[in-house]
């Protein structure tokens, strides 16, 4: 029989390794998905931050009183760890970027050949438009969002959370979440204007 989160948490609080492992197994992929989408496809960074989130959560598990569900509490830890990690990374990048030669396109250095449309798709220009270029535009627009707006937008659009859940996970008021979400939507709308028109 499948144990409930509450049972597993109780056992994990009593240092039951199996319960701890089962909780990790249960939330590992979801936690990784949240973090990886914030890490711009950097797998190693995403794995490190996911692991860090689990360690933070389990080290503080004895302080979890069960006022909210474990799911909400744990995702809050994941989101905080992720935002902290990105803040640190940005700080380091800012520090070292002064000493690095400036690249022509800091956002996407990529292979210039990638910008050339795929010949197989040339027969259908719509494919070209809705393919690589659109993908790049979407990612670029997403990267342009402030972290909290991006997190709110991703949790809503990519993880299907409700505004109330996002507020609990981000430890913010619902109004604040709405504000982050709507600003992010407006930004995305403006950045991808030519793609959504028509």
């Amino acid at each position, binding site marked *: 029989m499948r144990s409930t989160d509450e049972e597993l948490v109780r056992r994990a609080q009593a*240092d039951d*390794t199996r319960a*701890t*492992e089962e909780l*990790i*197994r249960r939330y*590992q*992929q979801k936690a*990784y*998905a949240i973090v*990886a*989408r914030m890490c711009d496809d950097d797998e190693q960074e*995403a*794995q490190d931050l*996911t*692991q860090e989130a*689990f*360690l933070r959560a*389990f*080290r503080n598990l004895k302080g979890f009183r069960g006022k909210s569900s474990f799911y909400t509490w744990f995702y809050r830890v994941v989101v905080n760890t992720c935002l902290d990690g990105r803040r640190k990374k940005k700080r380091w990048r800012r520090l070292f970027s002064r000493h690095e030669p400036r690249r022509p396109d800091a956002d996407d250095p990529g292979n210039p050949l990638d910008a050339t449309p795929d010949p197989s798709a040339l027969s259908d220009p719509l494919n070209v438009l*809705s393919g690589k270029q*659109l*993908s790049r535009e*979407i*990612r670029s627009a*997403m990267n342009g969002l402030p972290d909290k707006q991006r997190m709110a937008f*991703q949790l*809503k*659009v*990519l993880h299907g959370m*409700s*505004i109330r859940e996002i507020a609990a996970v981000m430890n913010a008021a619902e109004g604040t979440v*709405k504000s982050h*979400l*709507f600003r992010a*939507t407006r930004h*995305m*709308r403006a950045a*991808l204007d030519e*793609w*959504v*028109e028509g």
Partner: protein
Amino acid sequence: MTACSDRETTLYLDIYGELPPRQATEWHRHLDTCRGCREERQRLTRLVGKVESEFSAPALTDDSARDMRSAIIDRLHPRIRLPWRRQLFSGGPRRLVPALATAAILVAVLGWFGITRMNPATSGPSLSRITTEEQMILENYELIENLELLEEMEALEKLVELVDTEDLGNRIIPTPYHEARRGAYGHTLV
């Protein structure tokens, strides 16, 4: 045509499925009459759909997931390092089997070739090793055996005497037994 700016929040809430039912009825009535809001709603729905389809759910491979789990568990519950003596026995009795087998073979080989050939005199129980007490017991045992033999011989003599007495009148020719007895003891038993 542009959307109504005062309806932007309602439009976003509708896109994200968060519009309360009471407001939804009124909003849909507005959409029926406002082409700008209707078109903007379509554009935003398309935008959200494209973003959604662009980001497929990233997933850990089975190996990465397992490695991550064990790394987390190891850091949460670090294994205690045992002293070497306990490490030796920590694998259970099965771990000792090769060591015991090697030891047994060594003992057998050394016992057979080494001890036997190097000290042939000590291969059996030596008299010098027998204690005084054991020697006394052996002597007593021999004495008891001799006494029993003497008793048996005495009984035999009595039996022969009895038979011979009965046969005096019958003139029995002496048997080789009588001859032997006579020779052995130097006199006639009769």
